[in-house]
């Protein structure tokens, strides 16, 4: 106690900060940075010294197709989430009181529902003799049951369903932060409602749109459970390839190389975002 009290105030503050951060930093170092480094090493490990052979193997057309599909899937899902989610976020930003609270509870519930449970529910809903086909047939709209699941359609439904809440929740704070006086000013200056939206509101919401899209895109890139279950083998993503390489092919270096490629894609997306908006936004901005 005496020793501590003798320390200068800034020194005390620094020590407090260091004490607070050290345990978490150690855990991150040992259980995150170190394993990632090991993965990188493993991916260039050959029988005789470092090699890029595993990466060369990824140049085969089959991997190109798989990568292409994974990116396309992530991109389409992101766009769908943005289009479907923006109006909800707009409404959430524009309302207050209990209506807003209930919408937030519904959204949070949708966000935190078990991914496995939801995927399972979509099978029940979409399968040949499932709830939706049943309803459509009973209503006489279709004669034969539609193929709604175990194909790419099912994967899109499942992934948009899981990722939409993430998009909305990221959008809301940006939309709420828009000064309501700005659109009003635009209206008073002669802009119609659609013009006001396009030229004032939408540009002001751009940081939120970028944040939400980046988040959803990086998450979609690494998706595994939903495409594996709802795709029925017709929607193989890179994450599924990696699992196959580890558990069935037992080719660890190749799995490492594939992982590094997927990781690089995620980091690239994120650094573009960081350039445009700044990653600090994810932490609620800086003081």
């Amino acid at each position: 106690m005496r020793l501590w009290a003798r320390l200068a105030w800034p020194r005390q503050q620094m020590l407090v900060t260091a004490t607070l951060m050290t345990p978490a930093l150690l855990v991150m170092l040992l259980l995150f940075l170190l394993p990632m480094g090991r993965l990188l090493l493993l991916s260039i490990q050959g029988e005789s010294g470092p090699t890029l052979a595993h990466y060369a193997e990824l140049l085969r057309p089959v991997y190109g197709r798989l990568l292409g599909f994974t990116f396309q899937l992530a991109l389409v899902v992101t766009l769908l989430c943005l289009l479907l989610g923006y109006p909800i976020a707009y409404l959430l930003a524009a309302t207050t009181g209990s209506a807003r609270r209930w919408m937030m509870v519904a959204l949070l519930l949708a966000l935190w529902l078990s991914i496995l449970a939801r995927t399972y529910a979509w099978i029940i809903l979409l399968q040949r003799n499932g709830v939706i086909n049943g309803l459509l047939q009973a209503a006489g709209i279709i004669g034969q049951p539609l193929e709604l699941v175990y194909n790419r359609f099912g994967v899109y439904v499942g992934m948009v369903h899981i990722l939409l809440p993430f998009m909305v929740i990221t959008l809301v704070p940006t939309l709420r932060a828009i000064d309501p006086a700005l659109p009003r000013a635009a209206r008073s200056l002669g802009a119609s409602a659609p013009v006001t939206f396009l030229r004032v509101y939408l540009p002001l919401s751009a940081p939120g749109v970028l944040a939400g899209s980046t988040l959803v895109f990086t998450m979609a890139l690494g998706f595994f459970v939903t495409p594996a279950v709802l795709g029925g083998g017709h929607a193989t993503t890179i994450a599924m390839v990696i699992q196959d390489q580890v558990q069935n092919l037992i080719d660890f270096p190749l799995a490492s190389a594939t992982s590094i490629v997927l990781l690089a894609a995620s980091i690239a997306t994120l650094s573009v975002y960081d350039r445009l908006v700044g990653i600090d936004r994810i932490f609620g901005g800086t003081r």
Partner: protein
Amino acid sequence: MTALTLESPTRLRGLKVYSWTLLTIMLLPAAILIPLSFSADAAFVFPPRAYSLRWYERLWDQSRWRDAALLSLQVAALAALVATLLGSPAAIGLARLPPRLARSFRQVFIAPLIVPLMVLGVALYFQFAALRLLGSVWSLVLAHTVLVMPFVMITVSARLVSLDPALERAAHASGAGPWKTLARVVLPLLAPAMAAGAAFAFIFSFDEVVIAQFLAGPRLETLPRRLWEGIAIGGLENTITAVTSLQIAIALIGILMVEGWTRRRWNQPAGFAADVSTRLGPSLGLLPAAERGGAAIEFEAVIKRFGDHAAVDCVSLRVEPGEFLTVLGPSGSGKTTLLMLLAGFTGHDSGRILVEGRDIGPVAPHRRDIGVVFQSYALFPHLDVRRNVAFPLSVRGLPRAEIDRRVDEMLHLVRLEAFSTRRITQLSGGQQQRVALARAIVFRPRVLLMDEPLAALDRNLRLDMQIEIKRLHRALGQTVIYVTHDQEEALNLSDRIAIMHSGQMQQVGSPKELYLKPANTFVAGFFGATNLFRGIAAGACLVCSPELALRLPEVRHGRIAASLRPESIELLAADASRRGELAGTVVEVTFQGSVMRLLVAAAGRSLVVTKPSTSPAAAFRPGDAVLLDWDLSALHLMEDEA
């Protein structure tokens, strides 16, 4: 409230219908699964033909499901706990780092959220395999800890950003050291965010299958793994509906608990003891101020730089014991920085700050025995009025009875006895202000600092509070340094006024001195309205422009400025028989209550003149030709530094 005013009601109604439809679809899986889990049938018929609990019974009977569920609960609870214990302090630390360092650390901490689960799973699989830790519960717990820590950190950081930084300073000024401030102010305020972060972490870990698949080995089957096998390999089975329904229930309970807790948090009734810390022993400053008097304060050539900019530029100033000194200046003049230096929240770059002749540079803020009233009040939102006022005494470890006695006395003094159990948010601005004042003086500091304490109040309340502050100062006798940009406030309160501008002390003196004998053109122009004439003096004449030359009361030479207060100018109707110093035309007349303010154009510039509303000069109208006259001794001459 916000964009509503813009939108026609019909359009917003359309938006509402759309949003609720989509949200309903979002919740559709839950709506389907829960009824199905109670179906008596093995087939998936919706709605079920008959209901039973057989799938739940089967779940409990089959040890595989039960064990999996218990294991998952264990893993998720441990991971959430460890992540909260590690992540919350780290988030607090992150907020204190310099921005650039904080940025790089943030990128590290956020990374597990960005790295695809499969990649993290593979990497950890190799890592734990190398350490021969595969298949242990702890390997999974640790992996999940890394995975869910960002949730905790993001939630806690978001709350931290929304907290007033002055709260921590207020705790220091009240006498709490760094650890006590963390324990009694920061952590209680963060508790709801930590709970929310922990809940999110729990839910996420409870549902995680990809990493669990790699790390747990064959013996440790978590619930998501069991489910995954059921769905991906075993096909559809009704037991799964029961499991997933239970998961939905857990998520729902978690969300509602967090919701409820965050709302109840600030409603706790008073009654938990003013506790801890008898370690510190009797601290300084617990004698009545009347016996101790105020302390003398001295700034000696104090400099504080922020980058290249000197916020406080070589300020020297002596404040007498028990004096009420106001620091007056435009915003950005460095007056708040001066206070923060004295309170110890920022360190100065050179010079000395002495209290009672002792250099307090190395003294930590909580040991300086200086009370501070913050502009934002910085009242602790998690404590009621009584416990806010008791805080400085409680962190000094005073006996309970003594604390009660002195808090009662103080609440009486600021007339808030009736509000002692109120929450801070239930108080009006003026009441909050009085709580802040009571908290700053309850430990009888010999120095009280006030940083624009009345800026947020409306005018009438401000005048009332000024009288109150004056009364308290007379009763308690501390040395008070009061920062404001409001001249009227400075005039009403102060023994002396110190005028600051761009980091430098311009002049210190009584209000009368400052008004009648300003040291330079800034003080002349800032403190009260004036007409400033700048020019070259040659003998008893000041040449300002080709059209304007003034007679001077004394012989001067070189570049000088003359100040002429608006009330010392006589206004006469233009008349060939009379002579004035200048001839001009009235441009504007405004009624200001007790005086009329006239703007007169003369010799290519405009002059301000004030006359009592009752005087004949008040009858002039715009366009009238007038003569301006004044006593030569009314001209105050200064060096012109510009």
